[in-house]
């Protein structure tokens, strides 16, 4: 175990790492894969940073889509004015966001993207969802793994898992599935564990915030056995890596949007011998 971890865990909060080993989520696994030092700052040291403009944009879009899905689940009629109200209220729920003078533009873009989605969505107005924004967990202790936790954005009628995304650029389908593979596979495991059924498919619904907004639907097959195995191996690495304190930085393109880039630059490697 490197000294940084000894400092961060032994002299800090010894229970943090143990707690992180008890459960795991797609967000944590993705962060773990992206950069273990970022994981350390975010989940072990629990450093908090102000919400970014992009995160707020995505949160408000998700909030509106959640209400739209819930309305269908409750068999209520589609009312754009109500959703606009949800959007307005959600947008106001912010603090310390650095908009760089672009808040109005971003707000308009977010609503335009939602309107575009409501026009082009493949989901019919009378399609009743199987689940909307439900927290679920899968006990994987039988595999020697932590409990997998997650919130499913939407499960369409018939068992198709949908995850909503906002993106600045039009995504390439293959790359989108590759980049979101961990998340989709986590959702498949969660769905199967909580229903006893195999999902009928997975879909990424991208709301693209270009000047003229776009909606890109990327379908994927149900999770295959090798994908499940790969996910479980990643979880093993997560648990073992936490044990070892593998909090090493991974400089690369991901650093461009990393909120811990300043802390990372000061990072001395963690060896204080």
């Amino acid at each position, binding site marked *: 175990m490197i000294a940084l971890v000894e400092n961060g865990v032994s002299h800090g909060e010894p229970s943090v790492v143990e707690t992180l080993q008890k459960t795991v989520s797609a967000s944590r696994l993705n962060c773990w894969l992206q950069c273990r030092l970022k994981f350390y700052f975010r989940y072990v040291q629990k450093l908090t940073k102000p919400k970014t403009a992009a995160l707020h944009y995505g949160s408000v879009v998700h909030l509106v889509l959640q209400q739209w899905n819930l309305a269908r689940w409750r068999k209520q009629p589609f009312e754009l004015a109500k959703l606009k109200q949800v959007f307005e209220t959600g947008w106001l729920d912010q603090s310390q966001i650095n908009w760089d003078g672009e808040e109005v533009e971003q707000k308009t873009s977010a609503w335009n993207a939602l309107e575009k989605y409501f026009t082009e969505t493949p989901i019919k107005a009378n399609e009743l969802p199987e689940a909307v924004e439900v927290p679920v967990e899968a006990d994987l202790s039988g595999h020697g793994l932590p409990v997998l936790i997650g919130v499913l954005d939407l499960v369409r009628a018939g068992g198709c898992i949908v995850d909503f995304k906002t993106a600045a650029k039009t995504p390439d389908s293959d790359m989108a599935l590759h980049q979101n593979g961990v998340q989709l596979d986590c959702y498949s495991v969660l769905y199967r564990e909580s*229903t006893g059924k195999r999902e009928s498919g997975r879909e990424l619904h991208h709301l693209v915030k270009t000047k003229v907004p776009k909606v890109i639907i990327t379908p994927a097959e149900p999770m295959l056995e090798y994908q499940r195995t790969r996910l479980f191996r990643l979880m093993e690495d997560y648990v073992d890596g936490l044990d070892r304190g593998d909090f090493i930085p991974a400089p690369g393109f991901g650093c461009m949007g990393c909120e811990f880039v300043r802390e990372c630059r000061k990072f001395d490697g963690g060896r204080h011998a």
Partner: protein
Amino acid sequence: MITLEANYSKKIGLPGYSSHQFSVTLKSELTDIAQAEKESARLYDVLQQSVDRNIQQIGFLPGEPAKTNGNGHTNGNGHQNGHGQPKPESDKWACSDKQRELILKITEEHQLDKTKVDQLAQDRFGKGVKLLNKLEASGLIEELLEQTGQTKPRGQRFQKAGGAR
């Protein structure tokens, strides 16, 4: 001297979303570790028989007393056989124990009408509360939390389960 301590506990569902549980603990002293396996099996038998025999006395039930019809079925959510003993199969919930407890807790704490909660499950999923799988039960819990003003932001849903997502 080796001390062997064994505990057997059982919890069963009862009509009207209620339940009761009983546990018995026994200590036994052994002179030789080789006796442990045999003694452990004996204690298990004794404890299980004891708990099973006693837990059949369901005692007080909240709300109306369960009335049996000619077929031995109660008017509540549970079933009873001709001897007034609960049938465990009919009291099983398809969701997890944790979800079951949470649904019961919200229902009790907010004095929700159990029939309406069951009707809500029927409306949303086409089946009663006890038949909801874990995904469906989670959806029902979210709905009940919203109805009772306890909805949590997305990032805090798993706070109890062990921290940030």
